[in-house]
């Protein structure tokens, strides 16, 4: 496409540090009173941090052994957990999510400002800041704000790179993409599309082979490096370089019409999917290459989300949907200020800029679009479970009982517990367990494979274990979404000396 190069005004606004600091304090203050309702993910990640600080094998395994539990959000919490220990559960997650949420708002403001958007940019920023989904994520210690921040960074830096060819933008794009990969593996599909766009953009320019090679080297290296590092860590810690990817072989456990479910979740956010699409259409008509590239990039998460939905995995598509919220706002800013139609819709700018804010306010009137209602946490049942197991055996055998609690949820369940009877397990091998604890009564406790939990190694290693058990497992009992099995230990055949 012979695209007229769009000029992005070379305004050089600075990131508003006071805004970020103020918002961080605001989010932290608001979230501190709600620490009790911190997200499960946050609790699990903090528990992993504690294990890491204790230099434990299961901590290191938990850090890298699943593509669905990317390592960076855990590592970001590590310094705060190191300082605060186990005294303030949820604090590190709240601080990280607040900082990332504030940084995201600062970045969006900076992006819109650099596109020479006047006061309308405050409306767009307010549209994000007032969004209930965004606020919830800032306050509940979720890693989603981190994902959103890096996604916005990727999108913004990419737009600067294609328009102005600033090396700094390429570097920040590459680093943000590398970090995004190890923050949320779900976004890998989107990143692949963005990389493809980078390659296409580079190829359509008449630059030398050496320059193309250099751009692609610097632009892709951090992403490749992040991926290779993850593989290396899996090889070192799990003994299998692709261990974290094994869960992809697992089939989905979601039921019902996933597309309908997706629409239910999407709710008013569907508008944010339309904005990039409009950008794509307008740019294609105006033969504006940069606008088209940006529009496709902003629209891509929806396609990736649909792909996951088609596979029956709703939680990654939900994450991608959140990205779309941010990219939708950026696309609107791009459409109103930078794209080829910007001058034609100059008068309607104010009205269009208010859309995100209206949608955010509208969302308050609608039922909360969460994928699944979080069941009320039931506590204290672990003691009952232990008692239950003990009563099945002679009192003297109590010290010879081990229960392997499987999967990432075990970190949340066993957080703060130092019980020799309960063991974390991320990579359980039944025969090895028997060899490790000869003469013990061995049990495994497995969570119901719903959502992300279905991707735990126990489920991809032993498909249908929860429903149908295994040859060496004997069903025992159900415990609040968990199922207890006993490992059957066959006696070793006695050697026949007569032969």
């Amino acid at each position: 496409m012979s695209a007229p190069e769009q000029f992005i005004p070379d305004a050089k606004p600075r990131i508003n540090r006071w805004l970020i600091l103020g918002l961080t304090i605001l989010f932290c203050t608001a979230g501190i009173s709600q620490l009790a309702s911190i997200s499960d993910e946050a609790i699990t990640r903090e528990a992993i941090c504690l294990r890491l600080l204790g230099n434990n094998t299961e901590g290191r395994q938990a850090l890298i052994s699943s593509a669905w539990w990317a390592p960076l959000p855990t590592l970001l919490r590590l310094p705060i957990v190191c300082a605060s220990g186990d005294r303030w559960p949820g604090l590190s997650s709240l601080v990280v999510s607040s900082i990332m949420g504030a940084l995201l708002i600062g970045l969006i403001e900076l992006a819109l400002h650099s596109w020479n958007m006047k006061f309308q940019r405050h409306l767009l920023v307010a549209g994000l800041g007032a969004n209930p989904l965004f606020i919830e994520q800032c306050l509940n210690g979720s890693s989603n704000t981190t994902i959103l921040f890096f996604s916005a960074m990727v999108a913004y830096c990419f737009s600067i790179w294609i328009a102005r060819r600033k090396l700094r933008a390429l570097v920040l794009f590459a680093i943000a993409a590398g970090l995004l990969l190890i923050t949320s593996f779900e976004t890998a599909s989107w990143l692949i599309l963005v990389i493809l766009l980078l390659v296409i953009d580079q190829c359509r320019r008449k630059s030398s082979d050496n320059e193309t090679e250099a751009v692609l080297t610097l632009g892709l290296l951090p992403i490749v490096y992040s991926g290779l590092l993850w593989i290396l860590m899996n090889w070192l810690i799990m003994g299998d370089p692709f261990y974290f990817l094994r869960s992809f072989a697992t089939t989905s456990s979601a039921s019902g019409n996933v597309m309908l479910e997706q629409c239910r979740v999407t709710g008013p956010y569907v508008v944010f999917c339309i904005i990039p699409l409009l950008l794509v259409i307008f740019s294609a008509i105006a033969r504006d290459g940069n606008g088209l590239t940006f529009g496709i990039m902003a629209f891509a998460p929806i396609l990736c989300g649909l792909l996951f939905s088609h596979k029956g995995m709703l939680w990654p598509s939900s994450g991608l949907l959140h990205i779309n919220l941010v990219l939708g706002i950026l696309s609107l800013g791009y459409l109103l200020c930078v794209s080829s139609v910007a001058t034609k819709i100059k008068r309607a700018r104010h009205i269009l800029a208010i859309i995100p804010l209206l949608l955010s306010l509208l969302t308050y009137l609608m039922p909360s679009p969460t994928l699944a209602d979080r069941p009320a946490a039931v506590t204290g049942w672990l003691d009952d479970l232990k008692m239950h197991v003990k009563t099945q055996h002679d009192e003297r055998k109590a010290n010879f009982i081990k229960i392997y609690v499987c999967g990432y949820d075990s970190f949340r369940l066993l957080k703060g517990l130092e019980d020799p009877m309960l063991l974390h397990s991320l990579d359980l091998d039944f025969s090895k367990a028997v060899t490790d604890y000869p003469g013990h009564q061995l049990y495994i406790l497995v969570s119901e494979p719903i959502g992300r939990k279905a991707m735990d190694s126990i489920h991809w290693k032993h498909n249908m274990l929860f429903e149908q058990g295994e040859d060496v497992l004997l069903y025992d009992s159900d415990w609040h979404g968990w199922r207890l099995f006993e490992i059957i230990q066959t006696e070793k055949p006695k050697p026949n000396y007569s032969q």
Partner: protein
Amino acid sequence: MKAGPLAIADQQPELSARSTFWPWQRILIASIFLAFLAGVLWAPSRVTTARVFVTLSTIFYLAFTLYKVLLMSLSTNHKSLISPTPEEIAAVKDLDLPVYSVLVPMYHEAESVPHLVAALARMDYPADKMDIQLLLEEDDNATRKAVANLALPKNCRATVVPDSQPKTKPKACNIGMDNAQGKYLVIYDAEDRPEPDQLKKAVIGFSKSDPSVICLQSKLNFYNPRQNILTRWFTAEYSAWFDLSLPGLARLNAVIPLGGTSNHFITEKLRELMGWDPFNVTEDCDLGVRVYRKGYCTRMLATTTWEEACSSPKYWFRQRTRWLKGYMQTFLVHTRNPFKLAQELGTRNVIHFHMLIAGVIVCFLINPFYWMLALLWFLLRNNELKILFPGPVFAMGALCLFAGNFVFAYASGLGCFWRKKYDLVKYGLLAPVYWIMMSYSAWRALFQLFSDPHKWEKTKHGLFKSEDDQP
């Protein structure tokens, strides 16, 4: 008034590297070494000693990496260079230009003389206002003969440096400074090819700057980057340093360790500083620190001098050993009175000084130890190594290993890109091999610091003959 070639050593011995260690420094270094040795040899304290060492060095690595990232960020984001525009340069009238002294110390560089004279003739500066001195050593008959055989322009004269100890470049420069007639003064090496408008840019740069700016450092780069893998790495390193680190330092108004050539000075102020320390083997770095200690400062000038990158491993090791030994000398000289240093530089600049001078030395010295440790861990999966790394230290160590090393290698590639030497980007990423060579040189420098502190290992130039590979 002529100060003499050894002025700083004679009049301010505490600022000269004539005596490498002061008594208390000897005692302190010996004490630390003995305490470490005792800690390692005495079984009960072995683990604690190792842990302390590992913890401190991990914190240092992390700080150093963040420092590097900060400098890169500032260098690429802000206008930290003094960049006279073509219009400003064109507007300068020859009559208004001051006399500019150009010092070119030479030793056993007879083959460079014709190139040098040609390069200086290309300078866009009125010939009658250039005061060029070729500083020739008395015992270097070949170079003296080559100069004598050449019809030197009127503005160029040969100054013979008497054959005496120390036989170093800074001593020759001090003699040149004493004889200089210009308002401004610049040092070039014999093989240098400065950009023709560099002197005019410097004049404009000084006129635009604050009076406290007495030195302008030009960027350095190489005209033979593609000669072999060594020159490719060297170019990546120089690009990362002069383009992605020094502008950041200038932006922070931090101490700038000067490069060995193309430093432009206000002659009067340079004399006030008593010139270069003839006993310091990186006299440029030392002078850069003294500029700030006197309350003056240095800025970066947006112009490049093209040099010849050392292409021979043998001479490269010798050159690097000298540089790192000079860094060690500079550190020892300026920490002789730490309180005075803090008073003169200010807290912020003391931190910069330690990061830039001590940081580089420590980094190269301890790198081999950590590479071996990482290799052992990868190959043997030795669980006993875990005891050296308590949880938080392990996390920081892993961050430095995986993110820190990446940052430094990536920076080398970026430097090449920034210089538009696109084909060298991939070589910049192979920098870790280059770091091994640096670490070897650092250890060699450390041994030489004790055995022969003033030994000047001369770099051999003129190994690059082709004229095709020009910038």
